[in-house]
Structures are given as structure tokens and as C-alpha cells.
């Protein structure tokens, strides 16, 4: 009896009390660097994005972190009392947020007279680094990021993982695998080739889910919560891309592979030079590229819009579409098969394993950019993962599906030809 109690007490103690905090993971490319180089990368990533428990809102990124204007009333040693200037929702809490100096307006002037708030709300905020003066205009930053993180950890983390690497605890049981955000590539977008997904695209995927996969519809979430999840997903994608932009230039010189490594002292010196002279430039360029790339996704000029309205479906249009499907110009049948069952001749070939050119895969089939076997859509099933609206099917044909072998036909097929194909694709499930 005493022995049993002692044994159980030991088990409880050994398990530890309390929750282990979530941590961001490093990509496989980073883990191939030398240990010292990994430390440099980890340090920079933590400075730019933080940890899942202490997030960093890097203002160089085109993320809506959630900003509330405020003015400083009192300043103490490690905290400041601020008065909110703009109205906030009734469920607003400043818990965990920080204040930042309000950036100067575009004209270069800093606003002098703050507008009187409708209801004076005094909030105490911890202050760590910058010093603030009484009466200074500040911004209370991070509401959407904090909320998005909580929502993501509640609804998304088990499949998509803490870092958005598509490798959460549930992921190993799923086919197709959950999306790995870290390349900034998302399959079902309204944007053109080489452009990131727009907020609206991600919103649609969360709201309507991806039929035919394990991604459910989150239509029951309020719109503002979905928006916050979208911002957090974008932020995670930027973190993944940022890691790649820092690590890829380091791969040749700071690999952990002992064959190519230089002598330890030389490597330490080279890493020091890299850190001091190359890294700041890399950081600035990476921030600029992320800002340009993700802002371009919101640009209406990058949205794929049909140039003409849809040809009404009918026997002639479907017949033209069928000829294009089987024909030489588009070669849809080479992957999708002559009957659209997703079993075209390209699926029988043994392709190279992604990332290992020349090494043949054991199983035949096409691969996506994330390294998974991917089957061309079986069009007889009437399941459209990216949405079943005519414009959705048009976009799949016009701009392809990013990260997959599905090509972009926008520059080789005319608008009318794409609509004929859309009409044919719609007809496939109903004509056999």
C-alpha cells in the first residue's frame, strides 16, 4: 500500500507539473547548418517573430497586428498608463499588449492635438525598452496577433502545427497532408501565378473548408475571429519565408556537413563576419521582399478575373471543351486521363524524389512541392477542392494550382477556350 502510493507519487513528480510551452520549430534546411549557424538563425528568428508565448509584432511586415491609438497619461518605472483614443469593442482587453511610438503620418508631421475619446479608458501597460513621455501619442499594438494566436492554437494547431509547418500531431494520419505555410504557397487562390494568396483567399478556405480533404468549414466562427486567424496564418507564413531567406544564403558556407566544413576556427570567424556584415542587409532585404510580396497579393491587379463572361453551357461548348481536354494544346488527359478519372499516363511514371534529383521514387506518380505524392483530380467525382463556382474552376485552369504539377494555361488558352473547358469539366460527372 505504501509502496504503491510512493510509486504513484514518483510517477506524478516525474511527469512534472504544469504545461510545457509551445515552441516554434526550425526548418529542415536550418537543421542542416552547423550548430553555431543554427544559433544565429534561431536568435534572429526569435528577435523578429518571438516565441508562441511571447510574440513579436515586427512592424516591417504587412500584417494587421491590431493597433489602437492611445496617449500616455502617466509613466512609472516599468509600466505606463495610457488613455485609449479610439473606441474599442466591449470584449477588448489589453492583456499582454505593448505600446509603440506612433509612426509619423505620411506628411511627416506628428499629430499634436489628440481627439477626445468618447469614453476615457485608462489602461496600464508594461514598458520594457523605449521610454515614453507623458502626453506622447502611442499605439497599443498586438490585439489581432494575440487573439489570432489563441484562436489558431485552439482550432488549427493540431493539424497545421505550432509553426504552421503542416506537421501537427494529427497530420501524420491525414492524406492529403495539412498545408505547410512556410513557403508562402497556398493552392487555392484568386491571385495570379507567383503571387501570394490574398486575405480573401485564406478567409474563403477557412470559412468554406476544402471539400474532399480534412480541412473543415469554420463558418460558425464570427467574421472577426476568422480575420484574426487569417492574419496569424499570414504571419506564420512570413516567418517560414523569412527563415528560408536567411538560411539559403548560409547553406554553402555554414553547412553542418563535415565534408564541406572549414576548420573550426575559420568557420567561427566567417560566421562572425557574416553576422556583422551580411546579416543586417539580409534582414532588411527579406523584410522588404515580404512586404512587397504579401502586399501585392491584395492588389486588385493581381486578381485573376475572366476577361469575358462565361460561355453558357451547352452541347457545342462542352464538345469544344472535350476536344481541348483530349487535345495536344492543353494535354489535360496526360494527367487527368481520357475519362477525367485522374489516371493519365503521367501518373504511371516513376518520378524523381523531390529534393533528390536522379533518385527515383519507389512508387509511381506526381509529386507536389512539399514532397508528397499528389494525384491529379478525379473529375468524375464532382468534388472541387478549391471551390465549385465557375470563377473558381476558371482560376484553377488559368493560373494553375501553386505548388502542384497543375500548370497555368492563362497565356496559352484564350478566355473562350478556358470557359469551354470549365463547361466540359462541369459536365464530366454527369455524362457517364
Amino acid at each position, binding site marked *: 500500500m505504501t509502496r*504503491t*502510493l510512493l510509486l504513484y507519487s514518483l510517477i*506524478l513528480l516525474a*511527469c512534472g*507539473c*504544469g*504545461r*510545457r510551452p*509551445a515552441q516554434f520549430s526550425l526548418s529542415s534546411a536550418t537543421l542542416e547548418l552547423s550548430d553555431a549557424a543554427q544559433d544565429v538563425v534561431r536568435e534572429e528568428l526569435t528577435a*523578429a517573430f*518571438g516565441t*508562441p*508565448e*511571447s510574440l*513579436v*509584432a*515586427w512592424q*516591417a511586415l504587412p500584417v494587421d497586428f491590431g493597433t489602437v491609438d492611445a496617449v500616455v497619461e502617466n509613466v512609472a518605472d516599468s509600466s505606463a498608463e495610457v488613455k485609449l483614443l479610439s473606441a474599442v469593442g466591449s470584449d477588448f482587453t489589453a492583456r*499582454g*499588449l*505593448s505600446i509603440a511610438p506612433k509612426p509619423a503620418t505620411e506628411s511627416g508631421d506628428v499629430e499634436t492635438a489628440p481627439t477626445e475619446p468618447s469614453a476615457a479608458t485608462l489602461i496600464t501597460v508594461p514598458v*520594457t525598452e523605449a521610454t515614453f513621455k507623458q502626453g506622447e501619442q502611442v499605439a497599443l499594438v*498586438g490585439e489581432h*496577433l494575440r487573439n489570432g494566436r489563441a484562436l489558431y*492554437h*485552439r482550432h488549427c*494547431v493540431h493539424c497545421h502545427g*505550432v509553426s504552421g509547418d503542416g506537421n501537427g500531431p494529427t497530420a501524420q494520419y491525414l492524406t492529403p497532408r495539412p498545408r505547410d505555410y512556410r513557403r508562402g504557397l497556398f493552392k487555392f487562390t484568386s491571385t495570379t*501565378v507567383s503571387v501570394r494568396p490574398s486575405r480573401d483567399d485564406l478567409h474563403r478556405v477557412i470559412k468554406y473548408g476544402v471539400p474532399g480533404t480534412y480541412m473543415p468549414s469554420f463558418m460558425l466562427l464570427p467574421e472577426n475571429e476568422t480575420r484574426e486567424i487569417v492574419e496569424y496564418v499570414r504571419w506564420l507564413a512570413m516567418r517560414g519565408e523569412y527563415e528560408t*531567406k536567411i538560411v*539559403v*544564403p548560409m*547553406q*554553402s*558556407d555554414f553547412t553542418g556537413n563535415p565534408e564541406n566544413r572549414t576548420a573550426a576556427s575559420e568557420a567561427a570567424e566567417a560566421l562572425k*563576419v*557574416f553576422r*556583422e*556584415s*551580411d546579416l*543586417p542587409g539580409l*534582414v532588411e532585404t527579406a*523584410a522588404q521582399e515580404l512586404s512587397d510580396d504579401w502586399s501585392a497579393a491584395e492588389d486588385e491587379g493581381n486578381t485573376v478575373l475572366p476577361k469575358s463572361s462565361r460561355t453558357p453551357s451547352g452541347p457545342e461548348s462542352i464538345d469544344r471543351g472535350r476536344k481541348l481536354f483530349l487535345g*495536344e*494544346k492543353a*494535354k489535360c488527359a*496526360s494527367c487527368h486521363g481520357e475519362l477525367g478519372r485522374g489516371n493519365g499516363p503521367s501518373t504511371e*511514371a516513376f*518520378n*524523381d524524389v523531390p529534393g533528390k*534529383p*536522379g*533518385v527515383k521514387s519507389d512508387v509511381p506518380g506526381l509529386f507536389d*512541392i512539399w514532397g508528397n505524392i499528389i494525384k491529379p483530380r478525379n473529375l468524375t467525382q464532382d468534388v472541387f477542392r478549391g471551390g465549385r463556382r465557375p470563377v473558381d474552376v476558371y482560376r484553377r485552369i488559368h493560373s*494553375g494550382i501553386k505548388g*502542384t*504539377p497543375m*500548370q*497555368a494555361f492563362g*497565356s496559352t488558352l484564350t478566355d473562350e477556350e478556358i470557359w469551354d473547358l470549365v463547361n466540359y469539366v462541369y459536365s464530366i460527372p454527369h455524362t457517364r
Partner: protein
Amino acid sequence: MLVSPRYLWLLTVALVLPGCDLARLDPGGGAFSDVTVSVRPVAVAKADSPETPTGADPSPGVPSGGTGSFSGVVLLNGTAPVLPPRVGKGASKVDPTVCAAEDAIPDESLVVSPTGGIANVFIYLDRKPSGWKGTLENSVPLDQLACIFKPHSLVAFANIPLLMKNSDKVAHNVQTFPSLNSSINASMPAGTTMETVFKKPEPKPFAAKCQIHPWMEYWTLVVDHPFVAITDSEGKFSIPSLPSGKYKFRIWHERADLLERAYAVEIKGGDAAPVELKFDVARFSR
């Protein structure tokens, strides 16, 4: 009975599962953790560093120091393996009347001449020499014929359009897999051309494939300077007009990855003596 082993086991499991945090049995993932958000301002770039980058170490007064070429031959040390063709004659499942109809499609991943010269080896500077200013010309266009990409290896210049042609009788597609640039996946019907632009230099050559004919592959290196060469069928290369100074070249092959990370070359106002670079055949195995 309540302290019998069975119930105590149940109690242990019930306590251990939530990690002893009885106060809040949250749905997992730490959704209710206390999270702080701190702000990082827009990064301020440090002043341009006077340090020389790892790729080049030119001596002062680069333009007046004269130029020279770096040339040589890359040889295989050992017997070249005989590689089976990617697709045997008449064995193509896709477009059999065009692909591998007349000849088998060779495996170009390791091409060695009878004298031991290795083709398709890239020799390049990791970044442009500091202080170098010059113009870049259009690179060799890419073409597709008999279901083979020609050339197998090419150099593209950053921000200069690369012309891609499909002179074949069947439609192909080009999907690129760069590290730092955006990838494209464009369809190219027979007889068409298109242009693509790479915005950033790449640290290594990257592969590009045709998804319709999956054996089709070619390699591209994107640079923002002209000091790069690809060995020809004899393994020979030449990089002319290098400003005087010390350089570290990268030497890369698709099978071996980086053969040399930092091959030191010095140009002293004239051509460097031609070099013979020999690499063991074991490095080219997959």
C-alpha cells in the same frame, strides 16, 4: 477499496494527462496561455559594411589593375559509370510518337568525355565582386526538342528575361524550383515561346522539370555578374575579364552538389595559369 491499485492507477492517469494543471483543463495547444506581444520597429539598416564578402576579395584599385581570365578543365578521377537511358527507345508512355521515338533519351546527369572531362559543371562567384560595374547580356535561350531540354545547364542573369522556346512537336511545360525566386509552372504548347525573369541571384543552380514528361530536367544558375562558366563536353571552361584580385569560386555539379566551396584564384593583371581540377568518381554517386 478506493485506494485499491485499480483506482489509484485511474487517478494517476487522470492527473498525468492534463500535466497536473488541474486548474485549467484547456483543449490543448496552449490556447489559453498568457501571451505577450512586444513590438519590433522597422529595421534600420546598418551602414554599408567595408568587409569584403566571402566570394571576392579584390585588391584596391580594381579597374586599373588589369584583368585576366580563369580557365581550365574539370576531370573525373576514376572510370565514368555508364548510365542507363532515362527512357528506352520506343518506351515512352507519354507521346510515344515523339519522345524517344528515334533514339533513347540519355541520362545527362553525368556526362563524361572519353578524355575524362566532366560536362555541365558550374564554376561561379558566389556574389559579384565589390566595385565591379558592368552590363549583362541576354543568356542562352532554353529550348525543348525531342522531349529533351537543351541546353541541360544554363546561366540566367538576374532581372534580365530568359527566353524559353518549345521547338518540339508536342506541348511541354516548364516548372522551376528555385530557392529564393518565385517558381513558375507554365504550359508551353508546341511552337510557342515565353519569357521569364528571375529577380534575385541564387546561391546554387536549381532544377526545372516538365511535368508532362517527367524525365525532362535542366539546371539554371541565376547570377548578377558575368563571372560564371559551365564546362563544355570536354570539361573545359574559361571565365574572361576578371578584374585583378583574389577570388573564391564555387564549383558545383548536379550529382555531387558543391565540389569546391571556395576555390581560391588570384588574378594579377593577366590570365591565370589554366588549372586541372580532378574530382573522385565516388563524389558523383547518388
